[in-house]
């Protein structure tokens, strides 16, 4: 066996063995970021699916925006602008929306986009598996008046509806491809790019080529698009240092200095707020939380600036409200509503009958890191509240929503419209109101907001709602989390208000 194996022979054997293994290898998006005509972006999540009716948004938005057009678009100020629909108008009661559609759009399989295709897409989304399918919960019906006119009727006024049509609810897939067996991994849309399935490894690297027949050439800035998934922050850092990607959503802020020293620019954006959710406002699991003074005491117990430094590494802005500065409901004065004041917290607890404190059960998750829970426990212990933590494992979110705990730490996204925030965190049916807590004043303010006949009345209602919720201490926010998007010197992009990832058409070669 070991007879006269010359060195060259050994080398050739090694090369052949490695090559033989590599020959069967699947192709991938490669590792080069390419020239100005290839855009390679780093993402932190893979695409859940490419079926338009089931798609997620936020960090997954580039996947959908690569292959699908939306009925409407949002610009970088959050203003709704034309896309497949060129004009739109509500009736007087704001329960019927009429849209005029483009007549020159074709899906990449050659079939035409028209009002009938739009109706089919909207109805599929409404009953699909998208986590955002509630966006169309108020849609009563959608009808094709003629090929270029679409009429949508609503069950009730929905101030967020136009915005939903700029996101995944407005994505239009080819009806001819709805039932294709590979619909989840081989999309057919009318968007700026077409998936190159031969060079895509689902879950890791997605390659798209320019759609040669795209109707909006001004939005097509590249010939090729590669979306690469980085599950590991170190891998993403290495890709940045090796200049393999043009842009990347950073998983955390741990490597910001190293990324900047590699010549990348950081685009800052506040996308989430973080703090405690004081969910059991009716005191069903923990009677103490029914008393507003107890909830206020919890707010006073936290040194938010110290938490921002210790846990958020300084990337964020201290606040006591859940509405972002881009919202009409935002009131800068509310950011400092609850300063760190242990004496005040103790006095409020004593007034509420909890001078000796009480025990507060909360779920914990290892995903939050090791520093968070000791900080929470110590802060509340300082005012006499004993935190009882239970590791919820992978059931962290389900247990909060079950609801199994009266309160929990969490970072929640700050949606782009007030209506989305209301439906996400405040209304009796909101996802993060798991106890279905109903406050007549909150309900009245939501009603006033919905029935407002002009913008100033809507703004007044939602501002009052925000102030009331902060006064009632429904939450104990600490700070708005600043996340960063890195771009190389060859690429420019603007952040998208209310979305975790910049919109795809806003990426442009610099200069």
């Amino acid at each position, binding site marked *: 066996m070991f007879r006269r194996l010359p060195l060259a022979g050994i080398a050739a054997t090694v090369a052949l063995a490695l090559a033989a293994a590599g020959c069967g290898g699947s192709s991938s998006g490669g590792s080069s970021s390419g020239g100005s005509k290839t855009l390679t972006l780093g993402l932190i999540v893979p695409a859940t699916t490419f079926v338009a009716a089931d798609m997620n948004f936020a960090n997954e938005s580039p996947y959908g925006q690569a292959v699908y057009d939306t009925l409407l678009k949002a610009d970088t100020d959050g203003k709704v602008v034309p896309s497949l629909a060129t004009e739109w108008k509500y009736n007087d009661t704001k329960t019927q929306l009429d849209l005029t559609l483009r007549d020159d759009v074709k899906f990449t399989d050659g079939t035409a986009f028209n009002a009938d295709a739009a109706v089919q897409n909207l109805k599929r989304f409404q009953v699909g598996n998208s986590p955002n399918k509630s966006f169309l919960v108020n849609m009563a019906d959608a009808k094709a008046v003629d090929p270029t006119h679409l009429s949508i009727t609503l069950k009730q006024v929905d101030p967020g509806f136009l915005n939903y049509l700029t996101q995944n609810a407005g994505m239009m897939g080819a009806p001819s491809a709805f039932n294709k067996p590979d619909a989840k991994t081989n999309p057919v849309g009318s968007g700026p790019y077409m998936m190159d399935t031969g060079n895509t490894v689902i879950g890791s690297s997605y390659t798209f080529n320019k759609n040669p027949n795209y109707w909006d050439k001004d939005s097509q800035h590249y010939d090729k698009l590669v979306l690469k998934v980085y599950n590991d922050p170190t891998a993403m850092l290495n*890709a940045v240092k090796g200049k393999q990607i043009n842009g990347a959503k950073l998983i955390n802020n741990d490597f910001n200095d190293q990324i900047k020293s590699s010549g990348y620019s950081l685009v800052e954006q506040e996308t989430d707020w973080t703090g405690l959710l004081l969910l059991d406002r009716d005191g069903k699991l923990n009677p103490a939380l029914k008393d507003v003074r107890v909830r206020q005491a919890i707010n006073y117990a936290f040194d938010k600036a110290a938490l921002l430094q210790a846990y958020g590494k300084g990337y964020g802005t201290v606040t006591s409200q859940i509405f972002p500065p881009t919202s009409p409901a935002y009131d800068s004065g509310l950011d400092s509503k609850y300063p760190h004041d242990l004496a005040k917290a103790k006095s409020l607890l004593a007034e509420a009958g909890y001078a000796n404190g009480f025990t507060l059960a909360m779920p914990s998750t290892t995903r939050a890191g090791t520093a968070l829970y000791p900080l929470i426990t110590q802060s509340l212990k300082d005012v006499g509240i004993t935190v009882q933590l239970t590791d919820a494992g992978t059931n962290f979110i389900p247990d909060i929503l079950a609801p199994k705990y009266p309160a929990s730490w969490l970072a929640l996204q700050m949606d782009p419209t007030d209506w989305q925030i209301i439906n996400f965190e405040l209304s009796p049916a909101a996802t993060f109101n798991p106890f279905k807590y109903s406050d007549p004043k909150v309900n009245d303010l939501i009603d006033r907001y919905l029935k407002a006949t002009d913008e100033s009345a809507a703004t007044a209602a939602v501002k009052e709602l925000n102030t009331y919720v902060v006064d009632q201490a429904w939450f104990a926010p600490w700070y708005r989390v600043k996340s960063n998007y890195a771009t190389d010197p060859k690429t420019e992009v603007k952040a998208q208000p209310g979305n975790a990832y910049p919109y795809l058409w806003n990426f442009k070669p610099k200069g």
Partner: protein
Amino acid sequence: MLMFVLRRIGAGIVLLFVISSVTFILLYVGSGDIARNILGQQATQEDVALKKEQLGLNRPLLTQYFDWLGNALHGDLGSSWFTGEEVTSGITSRVAVTLSLVIGAIVVTALIATVLGVWAAVRHGWVDKVVQAVTILGFAIPGFLIAVGLVLVFAINLQWFDPTGYISFTDDPTGWLKTVTLPVVALAIGGIASVANQVRGSVTDVLRRDYVRTLRSRGLPFNRVVFKHALRNAGSPALAVLGVQFVGLLGGAVIVERVFAIPGLGDIAVGATSQGDVPMVMGLVVAIATIVVVVNLIIDLLQGWLNPKVRLS
């Protein structure tokens, strides 16, 4: 020999059944609310309940398992609950990537470990000490740390290799070499330490035996005695360690693939397991267990070829 192979294949099939059953149970115990994981935090409880029904998660565990097993026996491993990708296609597109790393690492391990082991056994003295010190270092330094260090030096500073990603050999042979070299080295270092120690010990032992002294007294050149006779007899235990290394490297590839952002089995295994993507994890388990069974069979056959006593036993 045929009976030996058939017995091994039979044992492999039983092993696959046991492993798939245990994995299935573990997945359901440890995955939490899979439907919630799929739909995300904004989904309502009603949507989550509907998703559970669609996936058949509300059926008895045994029914779910035997449904999966029945389909698997017909070659249908299903589709990922998260991406919709067919499990067979997902694994096929990634298995060659992982194998190119693992086979590359095994070849590098075998060559370097043999050279180091024989060198240390034959030369003794300072050479032996240096080789032992190097192997201890190889044991002590974690693979991921080596991977990170290699990237920093050879990919980012010297720019000889790509820091992340994978290029198929058929697309670009040079690009392929630039993407697999560092991961292969990172994977191989631990194995080299282990196998080199084994080779050193075995060769030292064999060189002390009477038949080696007899061969030398008959005037055979030392190199021929070492490489033709001693190494063949010492190869058997080293081969066994190499077989174990191969299985270990499949696990090690998980970390290396993440550090280098390589789209292999390890990369998908971590994501699928943490999400509770039952069809994908089950498919991966079947694929990896099959690879392990085949590798063990090959090692057994090689052992028999190297050492006739093994065949007789």
